[in-house]
């Protein structure tokens, strides 16, 4: 079944405590050259068929429910043939 993928990231200027904790773990492994880690979300919305209408609906949902524009940015919305497929 095809999916519509919505990618959401915390805003760049906001602290991302989860990412900061991972960056700290990397530094402890001697991998401080990965100077920053930020963790976002990937939503996969399974649909029978990807149409302009379902894409539009997903765009609305992305702003209305899946993300909060005060603290997050919607990076990308795209369709994929199946869950976990890389972007086309």
């Amino acid at each position, binding site marked *: 079944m095809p999916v519509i993928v919505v990618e959401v990231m915390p805003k760049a200027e906001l*602290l991302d*405590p989860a990412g900061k904790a991972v960056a700290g773990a990397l530094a402890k492994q001697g991998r401080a050259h990965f100077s920053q880690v930020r963790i976002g979300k990937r939503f996969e919305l399974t649909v029978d068929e990807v149409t302009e209408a379902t894409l539009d609906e997903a765009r609305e949902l992305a702003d209305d429910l899946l993300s909060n524009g*005060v603290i*997050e940015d919607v990076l990308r919305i795209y369709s994929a043939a199946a869950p976990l497929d890389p972007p086309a």
Partner: protein
Amino acid sequence: MTRVGVVTVPGSLDDRDAQRAVRLAGGEPVPLWHGAHDLDGVAAVVLPGGFSYGDYLRCGAIAAHSPIMSEVIAAAERGMPVLGICNGFQILVEAHLLPGGLVANDHGAFLCRDQVLRVENTSTAWTSLYEPGQHITVPLKNGEGGYIADAATLERLEGEGLVAFRYAGINPNGSANDIAGLTNPAGNIVGLMPHPEHATEPGFGPDTDAAMRSGTDGLALFRSALERVLA
């Protein structure tokens, strides 16, 4: 007796405490269920603390879209007193009844402490029985209590006196401008991260200079709303 609704959603934690606070203040608490489209004739509503829907997606985000919230939003817009505590405050911002957002504490940890607050606005439905600038002590317990908003919003909040409570002494979570709680321009909606409902009965509140656990500084919030509704 004045009926005050207390909304329970899956994951509510402090709904019983909020009901108790309403009772101690002299009101009649009315449990309201998230799936109902009915406020049961209440005169005011409390959105209590907890971890609604496991805080999945974002804190308060799923609860903000629950059926009862469309009734709460409509009533709030008509001027009904609405109080959001902790997760309830997060629900209010996710429902766009108050501006800004709440993010993880800047130190990255859950924090539980008795917190001193300064009451900044005493013209709201929930703060009229406090003195301007009064310091009160109520418990604070959250992991995502950092208040943020863009610069223009912060300027508007400060300019219009919409900061209801500010952290005093220390800023426990990195909140912008030490903001602990907000109100709307009409003053009927108040949201705050700390928990006034846990400081309403001697023996069960924060420690004071007088005696252990004797703090009841939170009770005046609930009394203020009851007084407002009767006025």
